[in-house]
């Protein structure tokens, strides 16, 4: 008997316990911009963006993640933002490489649509189409040293968002 069979063999179905279905009654009163501030991101206009990060921000798709290691600023297009927590869904298609939003020093994301909360977010996503995607909320951070919040752990040191909605 394989391990697989062994393990599955030890699992008995238990007394019926229904799946509760979709969550009802989620709050809708969230402010995306306020959430972005809370998570440490800033919102700018397209012209402000030019001033803050002049120069190259877009990069072609590549199979070699390491080639992106020296990027200072990366600009990408997010699919939508989530108002309750400032998260933005990024799918693989929008990235030069999966590692791109992590390996750059400063990240810029454009979004055109905002949904109120995570339940709406997954409805928006529907069934999976990408090989990889993520919710990204703010710059990378840690509080592992005596609970002092430090922005810029391993991922991007800053997140700048341009809202085209």
């Amino acid at each position: 008997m394989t391990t697989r069979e062994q393990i599955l063999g030890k699992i008995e179905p238990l007394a019926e316990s229904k799946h509760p279905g979709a969550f009802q009654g989620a709050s809708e009163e969230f402010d995306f911009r306020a959430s972005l501030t809370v998570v440490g991101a800033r919102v700018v206009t397209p012209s402000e963006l030019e001033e803050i990060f002049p120069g190259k921000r877009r990069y072609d798709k590549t199979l070699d993640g390491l080639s992106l290691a020296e990027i200072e600023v990366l600009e990408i297009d997010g699919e939508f933002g989530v108002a309750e927590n400032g998260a933005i869904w990024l799918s693989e298609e929008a990235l030069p490489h999966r590692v791109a939003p992590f390996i750059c020093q400063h990240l810029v994301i454009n979004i055109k649509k905002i949904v109120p909360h995570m339940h709406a977010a997954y409805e928006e996503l529907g069934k999976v189409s990408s090989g990889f995607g993520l919710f990204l909320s703010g710059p990378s951070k840690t509080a592992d040293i005596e609970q002092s919040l430090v922005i810029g752990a391993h991922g991007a040191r800053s997140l700048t968002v341009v809202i085209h909605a």
Partner: protein
Amino acid sequence: MLSHAEASENFIADADRTDWHDETLWFVREKRDKVSKVLPEWEALREHASQIKDHTLANLGEYLQAFEAKAQANGITVHWATDAAEHNAIVHDIIAAQGSKILVKSKSMLTEECHLNDYLASKGIEVVDTDLGERIVQFRNEAPSHIVLPAIHLKKEDVGETFHQFLGTPKGNKDPQFLTEAARQHLRGHFLASEVAITGVNFAVAETGEFVVCTNEGNADMGAHLAKVHIACMGIEKIIPKRSDLASFLRLLARSATGQLITTYTSHFHQSREGQEIHIVLLDNGRTRQLADPKYKNSLKCIRCAACFNTCPVYRRSGGHSYHQPVAGPIGSILAPNIDKKANVDLPFASTLCGSCTNVCPVKINIHEQLWFWRQDLMEAGLAPVGKTIGMKLMAFVLSNPVIYRIGGSLMRRFAGILNTRLNPWYKQREMPVAPKESFQEWYNKR
């Protein structure tokens, strides 16, 4: 190995440091309260997540098979491991096939449970833990003391010392910003060079075969997206049925853990990159046994947020190392005895059963009730310390016999002074209650 009580006594001997540890973690509890109380649907969310987990556990076999089929269809290799030894061997084989001698690993309590790092070291393979807190304790050769905040027991001076020793940062520098930058540069080198990356799994979705990894630092992704081989290690209880279920869990997880709205990165791995392999290892290690016991099955709902640690007045004043095994705190105390009853017999007793843990648990695990059940099971298994069984049986005899109880009570009050000695643990730091002349019953009989 010190028992929880012995280790706690040592911990508390430094009262100031204990106060600092207690206040730091209470502050995290307060942050959790703040964000949970502004969501009117908070309690309903807990109930929703709890029901999803209940349903999943009731149909776990089915969901595991569904997940496996979908994941395989997406090109992910699925492995099964009965126990820690098998898990470690599987992981080792994958690494050996790649020929790597050093690799990066992001936070995975499961790999702590299996002592994976030590096993791989014995095979000549170095694991670099990339979560900042874990890297710090790795340098210090310590275990993490908290499943979300691994280095919470350390002050910045301690971290400064460690980084001075291992990273060459200036002696005496304890600035968290500076030290984090040093770690960033140091670990970046490892990310760029590593061909193999190990991550944990926060959630695995049966409907789609994808798995989700949550971090604030971005270390799991920095490792996985640059590596040729990504090994994801998960307990079989991490399965959830549908993609849309993730919404409730993700709304609860970070808020419960740190008072954040969501972790910075919530990465959904569905298929590997071109030219990459993804392996997922499904581990049992006693989980099927826990599942089969109605008293303890609910402990498998755990999403490893550590809200129970932060609220526990005992954990805050004794520290994670006092629990002498990888997952400390209240949840650790109901999971560990399932793995080794004898070694962990003290843990369910490291509690006043105050019930705060059960209230903060995002998936409504009845932690304090399971602590009580474990106490019964462990004593019934004959693991009581010498004298306790006799003492308890004597107490039960006296207390079920009204006449003997009254005589015993009166004698105890008469000679209570005997107990005013340091041999009496109560008396170490407390006065004994003053013995009244009459018991209530004696007073009542004269009324």
